[in-house]
């Protein structure tokens, strides 16, 4: 702050408080909706303060599932989401760190070509090549499986770039010292590169976990068996009931639970999250 202007400071606080309220409003409304019973919504007005039906709602969606709209219990969908998110996260980190290591620490024919092939994945988001990718996965027999849910999303140009960028900053002397001491590439990778990359891995973990958990189109396309429904796509099925209003308390309760894990990750690992996000784009 350059000079002391109480009015501007007041204005800034006001803007921020309004901003925080704007950001929180939809979630507050969803929370309130999840604490009332079904009958409340029939009147056509929505209360703004929580009701007394909270435990009832969450118990129903978590344990029994909302039978009338064909949704399995949320615990199962959340387990699927968690598995999918974790496989995607660890898979992406593992294959990216290995390929970045190969690209930085080796000179081999077709190295630049390989780099460009990986780079191309940046330009081909799932959304623009839905049909052919679906066909490939179907031909491989991966529909309705965890492998089909996660493997096609595992390739990652951004993670590879991030690791490549980071490896280029590791001092040359470390490799030289390791080679003089007779360490092979994999020993160097295990004892030097991996420990040095810890913070980067953790930061990427936060970003990629959110990415994996929030997948929507892909799980929707390739799961028809409710055993493999993930929670983010399951909510859409719950809210898409024909000929009647959705059961708002259940839909909103599920939405609350579906955003809880990634939001907690962001709030508790904020420093890592910001690092991962800002560096990813450098």
């Amino acid at each position, binding site marked *: *702050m350059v000079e002391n202007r109480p009015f501007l400071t007041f204005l800034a606080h006001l803007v921020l408080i309004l901003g925080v309220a704007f950001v929180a409003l939809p979630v507050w409304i969803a929370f309130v909706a999840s604490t009332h019973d079904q009958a409340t919504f029939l009147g056509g007005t*929505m209360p703004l303060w929580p009701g007394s039906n909270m435990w009832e709602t969450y118990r129903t969606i978590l344990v029994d599932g909302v039978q009338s709209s064909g949704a399995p219990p949320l615990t199962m969908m959340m387990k699927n989401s968690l598995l999918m998110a974790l496989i995607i996260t660890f898979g992406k980190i593992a294959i990216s760190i*290995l390929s970045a290591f190969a690209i930085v620490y*080796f000179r081999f024919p077709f190295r630049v070509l390989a780099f460009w092939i990986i780079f191309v994945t940046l330009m081909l988001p799932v959304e623009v090549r839905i049909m052919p990718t679906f066909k490939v996965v179907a031909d491989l027999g991966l529909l309705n499986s965890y492998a089909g849910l996660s493997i096609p999303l595992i390739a990652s140009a951004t993670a590879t770039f991030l690791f490549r960028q980071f490896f280029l900053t590791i001092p040359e002397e470390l490799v030289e010292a390791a080679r003089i001491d007779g360490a092979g590439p994999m020993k160097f990778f295990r004892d030097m590169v991996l420990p040095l990359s810890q913070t980067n891995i953790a930061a990427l973990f936060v970003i990629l976990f959110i990415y994996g958990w929030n997948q*929507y*189109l892909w799980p929707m396309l390739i799961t028809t068996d409710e055993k493999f429904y993930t929670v*983010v796509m399951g909510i859409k099925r719950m809210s898409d009931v024909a000929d009647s209003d959705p059961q708002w308390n259940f839909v909103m309760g599920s939405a609350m639970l579906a955003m809880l894990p990634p939001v907690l990750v962001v709030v508790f690992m904020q420093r890592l999250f910001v690092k991962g996000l800002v560096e990813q784009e450098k």
Partner: protein
Amino acid sequence: MQTKRTTFRSYWLPYLLIAPQLAITLIFFIWPAGQAVRQSFLQEDPFGLSTKFVGLKNYVKLFHSAEYLASFETTVIFTLCTATLSMGLALLFAVAVDRMIRTSSAYTTFMVWPYAVAPAIAGVLWWFMFNPSVGVLTYALDVMGYDWNHRLSGTDAMILVVLASSWKQISYNFLFFVAGLQSIPQSLREAAAIDGAGPVKRFFTVVFPLLSPTTFFLLVVNINYTMFDTFSTIDASTAGGPGQATTILVYKVYEDGYKGLNLGSSAAQSVILMGIVMVLTFIQFRFIERRVQY
């Protein structure tokens, strides 16, 4: 391309290390993309029994189709509105946080968490608030005398998806604007203040021009976001309707291909979209290279 001065030597190890990534990329990215390109030159008969090569016919048809051109227009409007709204609000909040000393980290925490909310859930949340029968905001608008119904009015539906998509993106833009503001040297602002420039003038003549690299970068990222990632927001709130009012290009690929099974046309649309992403990625990287140089 850069490597280390000292490298390891092995004829097979680097290939082994890079193999998983390449295999997944080839099977799930390059091959389907190639298929899309091939399919875009083919036409299937209505029973799916035979396909024949039709050259550029699918593309020509697309650009003569009023629906597709309307979808282009929808995408442009949607992208511009969402990018402007989310970047504008984010900049406002970032400038406000930049004045704070003790409370800035608390405000930041309260600002950034929507990043973690799935676009689909953002769609569901706003769809609920604007629901014609029980929505809170619908009720508020009704009291003010506006009859909101995004199931009937295309404009209402567009406002709904713009709000939902911007809401989700504010946190991302906010973080980058805060980082950008913090990297502006304090001495520049002090010098401007000594020369008698007030806070508003300082913002427009010193701070905002220095933020332009961040702003430009965010603009590209936001265009990318609204063109592709908002698929789920739209699917969960308006499903492209009413009519075609919120059918952006990505949504049309999905509708024509997965629901309408018009494979040739859907593939041609995919190819056009890939072209757009390539241009955007190219701009983004050109710009980043430039930024690194100064």
